[in-house]
Protein backbone atom coordinates (compact mmCIF):
# COMPACT_ATOMS: atom_id res chain seq x y z
CA UNK A 1 0.00 0.00 0.00
CA UNK A 2 1.20 3.50 -0.68
CA UNK A 3 2.74 5.09 2.36
CA UNK A 4 1.68 8.69 2.03
CA UNK A 5 -0.47 10.91 -0.08
CA UNK A 6 2.68 12.77 -1.13
CA UNK A 7 4.24 9.54 -2.30
CA UNK A 8 1.11 8.68 -4.26
CA UNK A 9 1.13 12.07 -5.97
CA UNK A 10 4.86 11.64 -6.71
CA UNK A 11 4.22 8.24 -8.28
CA UNK A 12 1.41 9.62 -10.40
CA UNK A 13 3.65 12.49 -11.57
CA UNK A 14 6.52 10.16 -12.44
CA UNK A 15 4.17 7.95 -14.42
CA UNK A 16 4.71 4.99 -12.10
CA UNK A 17 0.99 5.15 -11.36
CA UNK A 18 -1.48 6.24 -14.00
CA UNK A 19 -3.93 8.84 -12.74
CA UNK A 20 -7.25 7.66 -14.07
CA UNK A 21 -9.65 10.43 -14.95
CA UNK A 22 -12.99 9.66 -13.32
CA UNK A 23 -15.94 9.35 -15.73
CA UNK A 24 -17.68 12.29 -14.02
CA UNK A 25 -14.73 14.50 -14.83
CA UNK A 26 -14.75 13.29 -18.43
CA UNK A 27 -18.46 14.11 -18.64
CA UNK A 28 -17.64 17.61 -17.47
CA UNK A 29 -14.95 17.92 -20.14
CA UNK A 30 -17.38 16.97 -22.93
CA UNK A 31 -19.97 19.38 -21.44
CA UNK A 32 -22.51 16.67 -20.71
CA UNK A 33 -22.86 18.33 -17.30
CA UNK A 34 -21.58 21.43 -15.52
CA UNK A 35 -20.06 21.92 -12.08
CA UNK A 36 -23.41 22.56 -10.47
CA UNK A 37 -24.86 19.41 -12.02
CA UNK A 38 -21.98 17.48 -10.48
CA UNK A 39 -22.77 18.89 -7.04
CA UNK A 40 -26.42 17.97 -7.49
CA UNK A 41 -25.55 14.46 -8.65
CA UNK A 42 -23.11 14.00 -5.77
CA UNK A 43 -25.84 14.84 -3.26
CA UNK A 44 -28.24 12.48 -5.05
CA UNK A 45 -25.61 9.73 -5.19
CA UNK A 46 -24.99 10.07 -1.45
CA UNK A 47 -28.71 9.88 -0.88
CA UNK A 48 -28.87 6.63 -2.87
CA UNK A 49 -25.75 5.53 -1.03
CA UNK A 50 -27.97 5.14 2.03
CA UNK A 51 -29.63 2.11 0.50
CA UNK A 52 -26.66 0.47 -1.20
CA UNK A 53 -25.16 -2.87 -0.20
CA UNK A 54 -22.16 -2.27 2.10
CA UNK A 55 -19.58 -3.22 -0.51
CA UNK A 56 -20.67 -0.48 -2.92
CA UNK A 57 -20.07 3.21 -2.31
CA UNK A 58 -21.99 6.23 -3.49
CA UNK A 59 -18.92 7.25 -5.53
CA UNK A 60 -18.93 3.88 -7.31
CA UNK A 61 -22.59 4.38 -8.11
CA UNK A 62 -22.05 7.89 -9.47
CA UNK A 63 -19.00 7.02 -11.56
CA UNK A 64 -20.63 3.88 -12.94
CA UNK A 65 -23.66 5.89 -14.05
CA UNK A 66 -21.41 8.37 -15.87
CA UNK A 67 -19.35 5.54 -17.38
CA UNK A 68 -22.47 3.87 -18.81
CA UNK A 69 -23.68 7.09 -20.38
CA UNK A 70 -20.26 7.96 -21.77
CA UNK A 71 -19.63 4.53 -23.27
CA UNK A 72 -23.05 4.60 -24.91
CA UNK A 73 -24.51 1.62 -23.06
CA UNK A 74 -27.17 4.01 -21.67
CA UNK A 75 -28.20 6.63 -24.20
CA UNK A 76 -29.90 9.80 -22.97
CA UNK A 77 -33.26 10.08 -24.73
CA UNK A 78 -34.01 13.40 -26.43
CA UNK A 79 -35.83 15.92 -24.21
CA UNK A 80 -34.61 14.20 -21.02
CA UNK A 81 -32.25 16.35 -18.94
CA UNK A 82 -28.86 14.65 -18.42
CA UNK A 83 -28.99 15.06 -14.64
CA UNK A 84 -32.42 13.43 -14.31
CA UNK A 85 -31.31 10.63 -16.63
CA UNK A 86 -28.11 10.01 -14.67
CA UNK A 87 -30.13 9.89 -11.45
CA UNK A 88 -32.30 7.23 -13.06
CA UNK A 89 -29.24 5.25 -14.14
CA UNK A 90 -27.96 5.34 -10.55
CA UNK A 91 -31.30 3.97 -9.38
CA UNK A 92 -31.14 1.10 -11.85
CA UNK A 93 -27.51 0.28 -11.00
CA UNK A 94 -28.49 0.17 -7.33
CA UNK A 95 -31.29 -2.27 -8.13
CA UNK A 96 -28.79 -4.43 -10.05
CA UNK A 97 -26.48 -4.56 -7.04
CA UNK A 98 -29.31 -5.71 -4.78
CA UNK A 99 -30.44 -8.33 -7.30
CA UNK A 100 -26.88 -9.66 -7.38
CA UNK A 101 -26.80 -9.61 -3.59
CA UNK A 102 -30.11 -11.44 -3.38
CA UNK A 103 -28.79 -14.19 -5.62
CA UNK A 104 -25.74 -14.54 -3.37
CA UNK A 105 -27.95 -14.62 -0.26
CA UNK A 106 -29.92 -17.52 -1.68
CA UNK A 107 -26.85 -19.57 -0.87
CA UNK A 108 -27.32 -18.79 2.84
CA UNK A 109 -30.62 -20.55 3.64
CA UNK A 110 -29.89 -20.81 7.39
CA UNK A 111 -29.61 -17.04 7.84
CA UNK A 112 -32.68 -16.40 5.71
CA UNK A 113 -34.67 -18.96 7.70
CA UNK A 114 -33.81 -17.38 11.06
CA UNK A 115 -34.71 -13.99 9.72
CA UNK A 116 -38.14 -15.14 8.58
CA UNK A 117 -38.99 -16.11 12.17
CA UNK A 118 -38.34 -12.54 13.29
CA UNK A 119 -39.79 -10.79 10.28
CA UNK A 120 -42.89 -12.86 9.54
CA UNK A 121 -45.30 -10.64 11.50
CA UNK A 122 -44.68 -7.40 9.68
CA UNK A 123 -43.53 -8.48 6.24
CA UNK A 124 -45.67 -7.15 3.44
CA UNK A 125 -47.36 -9.86 1.44
CA UNK A 126 -46.24 -8.27 -1.80
CA UNK A 127 -42.59 -9.20 -1.26
CA UNK A 128 -42.16 -12.77 -0.09
CA UNK A 129 -38.36 -12.57 -0.11
CA UNK A 130 -37.24 -9.75 2.17
CA UNK A 131 -33.47 -9.39 2.35
CA UNK A 132 -32.34 -9.31 6.00
CA UNK A 133 -29.28 -7.22 5.28
CA UNK A 134 -31.25 -4.71 3.27
CA UNK A 135 -33.86 -4.55 6.02
CA UNK A 136 -31.21 -3.76 8.62
CA UNK A 137 -29.47 -1.15 6.47
CA UNK A 138 -32.82 0.47 5.71
CA UNK A 139 -33.80 0.65 9.39
CA UNK A 140 -30.49 2.26 10.28
CA UNK A 141 -30.65 4.70 7.40
CA UNK A 142 -34.25 5.70 8.10
CA UNK A 143 -33.09 6.56 11.61
CA UNK A 144 -30.09 8.46 10.20
CA UNK A 145 -32.29 10.49 7.85
CA UNK A 146 -34.58 11.20 10.79
CA UNK A 147 -31.58 12.53 12.72
CA UNK A 148 -30.85 14.97 9.91
CA UNK A 149 -34.22 16.59 10.58
CA UNK A 150 -34.44 15.89 14.30
CA UNK A 151 -35.04 19.55 15.13
CA UNK A 152 -37.69 20.03 12.47
CA UNK A 153 -41.03 18.45 13.37
CA UNK A 154 -42.64 19.44 10.07
CA UNK A 155 -39.79 17.94 8.04
CA UNK A 156 -40.14 14.70 10.01
CA UNK A 157 -43.82 14.55 9.11
CA UNK A 158 -43.02 15.17 5.44
CA UNK A 159 -40.42 12.38 5.55
CA UNK A 160 -42.97 10.00 7.01
CA UNK A 161 -45.37 10.95 4.23
CA UNK A 162 -42.76 10.40 1.52
CA UNK A 163 -41.89 7.02 3.05
CA UNK A 164 -45.55 6.08 2.88
CA UNK A 165 -45.49 6.93 -0.81
CA UNK A 166 -47.65 10.06 -0.60
CA UNK A 167 -47.26 12.85 -3.13
CA UNK A 168 -46.28 16.37 -2.07
CA UNK A 169 -49.87 17.54 -2.44
CA UNK A 170 -51.21 14.62 -0.40
CA UNK A 171 -48.70 15.31 2.37
CA UNK A 172 -49.60 18.99 2.41
CA UNK A 173 -53.29 18.18 2.63
CA UNK A 174 -52.72 15.56 5.32
CA UNK A 175 -50.70 18.00 7.40
CA UNK A 176 -53.19 20.79 6.75
CA UNK A 177 -50.40 23.16 5.75
CA UNK A 178 -50.51 26.25 3.57
CA UNK A 179 -48.40 26.19 0.41
CA UNK A 180 -45.95 28.78 1.74
CA UNK A 181 -45.27 26.90 4.97
CA UNK A 182 -44.95 23.65 3.10
CA UNK A 183 -42.53 25.11 0.56
CA UNK A 184 -40.40 26.64 3.28
CA UNK A 185 -40.24 23.27 5.08
CA UNK A 186 -39.13 21.63 1.82
CA UNK A 187 -36.44 24.27 1.41
CA UNK A 188 -35.14 23.55 4.92
CA UNK A 189 -35.08 19.86 4.06
CA UNK A 190 -33.17 20.44 0.83
CA UNK A 191 -30.65 22.56 2.70
CA UNK A 192 -30.04 19.78 5.24
CA UNK A 193 -29.77 17.19 2.46
CA UNK A 194 -27.32 19.29 0.48
CA UNK A 195 -25.15 19.84 3.54
CA UNK A 196 -25.18 16.13 4.31
CA UNK A 197 -24.44 15.33 0.67
CA UNK A 198 -21.48 17.64 0.33
CA UNK A 199 -19.94 17.26 3.76
CA UNK A 200 -16.75 15.25 4.13
CA UNK A 201 -15.62 12.63 6.58
CA UNK A 202 -18.24 11.06 8.80
CA UNK A 203 -21.20 9.95 6.69
CA UNK A 204 -24.51 11.46 7.80
Amino acid sequence: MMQTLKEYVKKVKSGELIAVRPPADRALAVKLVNDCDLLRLKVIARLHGRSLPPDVSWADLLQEAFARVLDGSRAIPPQVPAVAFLAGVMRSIKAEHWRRRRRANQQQPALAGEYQVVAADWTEACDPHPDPERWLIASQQLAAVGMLFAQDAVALQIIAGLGDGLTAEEIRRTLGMGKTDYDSARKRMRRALIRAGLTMGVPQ
Partner: protein
Amino acid sequence: MSVRPDVGLERLIHGLEQELLGAPDEEFIAGAHDLGMNPQMKGSAAFLGVKNLTPQLLAALHRAYAEQRNPSREGAEGEVDQNAADPEHSDT
Protein backbone atom coordinates in the same frame (compact mmCIF):
# COMPACT_ATOMS: atom_id res chain seq x y z
CA MET B 1 -43.98 5.04 8.49
CA SER B 2 -46.39 2.22 7.92
CA VAL B 3 -44.37 0.07 5.50
CA ARG B 4 -41.36 -2.21 5.69
CA PRO B 5 -38.11 -0.24 6.24
CA ASP B 6 -36.56 -1.12 2.87
CA VAL B 7 -39.73 -0.15 1.01
CA GLY B 8 -40.11 3.04 3.06
CA LEU B 9 -36.47 4.02 2.55
CA GLU B 10 -36.69 3.58 -1.22
CA ARG B 11 -39.87 5.65 -1.39
CA LEU B 12 -38.29 8.30 0.81
CA ILE B 13 -35.14 8.41 -1.32
CA HIS B 14 -37.24 8.72 -4.45
CA GLY B 15 -39.23 11.62 -2.98
CA LEU B 16 -36.10 13.42 -1.77
CA GLU B 17 -34.38 12.81 -5.10
CA GLN B 18 -37.24 14.60 -6.85
CA GLU B 19 -36.80 17.51 -4.43
CA LEU B 20 -33.10 17.69 -5.26
CA LEU B 21 -33.69 17.44 -9.01
CA GLY B 22 -36.02 20.42 -8.81
CA ALA B 23 -33.87 22.56 -6.52
CA PRO B 24 -32.23 25.68 -7.98
CA ASP B 25 -28.46 25.61 -8.62
CA GLU B 26 -27.97 28.38 -6.05
CA GLU B 27 -28.98 26.06 -3.21
CA PHE B 28 -26.09 23.70 -4.03
CA ILE B 29 -23.57 26.51 -4.30
CA ALA B 30 -24.83 27.98 -1.02
CA GLY B 31 -24.65 24.52 0.61
CA ALA B 32 -21.02 24.17 -0.41
CA HIS B 33 -20.22 27.66 0.88
CA ASP B 34 -21.93 26.84 4.21
CA LEU B 35 -19.41 24.04 4.59
CA GLY B 36 -16.49 26.32 3.80
CA MET B 37 -16.04 24.90 0.31
CA ASN B 38 -15.62 26.92 -2.84
CA PRO B 39 -16.84 24.90 -5.83
CA GLN B 40 -15.30 27.43 -8.21
CA MET B 41 -11.84 26.60 -6.88
CA LYS B 42 -9.90 23.94 -8.75
CA GLY B 43 -9.65 20.83 -6.59
CA SER B 44 -12.47 21.95 -4.30
CA ALA B 45 -13.42 19.44 -1.62
CA ALA B 46 -17.00 19.78 -2.81
CA PHE B 47 -16.05 17.51 -5.73
CA LEU B 48 -14.29 14.86 -3.67
CA GLY B 49 -15.25 11.49 -5.08
CA VAL B 50 -16.62 13.14 -8.21
CA LYS B 51 -13.75 14.76 -10.10
CA ASN B 52 -10.86 13.49 -8.01
CA LEU B 53 -9.83 10.96 -5.38
CA THR B 54 -12.62 8.83 -4.04
CA PRO B 55 -13.32 9.10 -0.30
CA GLN B 56 -12.30 5.44 0.03
CA LEU B 57 -8.89 6.01 -1.51
CA LEU B 58 -8.39 9.16 0.51
CA ALA B 59 -9.32 7.31 3.72
CA ALA B 60 -6.92 4.48 2.81
CA LEU B 61 -4.15 6.99 2.23
CA HIS B 62 -4.84 8.71 5.55
CA ARG B 63 -4.81 5.34 7.31
CA ALA B 64 -1.56 4.35 5.64
CA TYR B 65 -0.05 7.69 6.60
CA ALA B 66 -1.20 7.32 10.21
CA GLU B 67 0.23 3.79 10.37
CA GLN B 68 3.55 5.01 9.07
CA ARG B 69 3.64 7.81 11.64
CA ASN B 70 2.59 5.54 14.49
CA PRO B 71 3.18 1.83 13.73
CA SER B 72 1.73 0.75 17.12
CA ARG B 73 -1.70 1.76 15.86
CA GLU B 74 -1.31 -0.43 12.80
CA GLY B 75 -4.42 -2.38 11.99
CA ALA B 76 -6.78 0.21 13.51
CA GLU B 77 -9.13 -0.34 10.60
CA GLY B 78 -12.10 1.91 10.18
CA GLU B 79 -10.74 4.85 12.08
CA VAL B 80 -11.52 8.18 10.55
CA ASP B 81 -8.89 10.84 10.38
CA GLN B 82 -10.72 13.92 11.57
CA ASN B 83 -8.51 16.10 9.38
CA ALA B 84 -10.06 14.35 6.40
CA ALA B 85 -13.40 15.76 7.47
CA ASP B 86 -12.18 19.31 7.47
CA PRO B 87 -12.77 20.96 4.13
CA GLU B 88 -10.21 23.64 4.91
CA HIS B 89 -7.47 21.02 4.57
CA SER B 90 -8.50 20.40 1.00
CA ASP B 91 -9.92 23.69 -0.12
CA THR B 92 -7.35 26.16 0.99
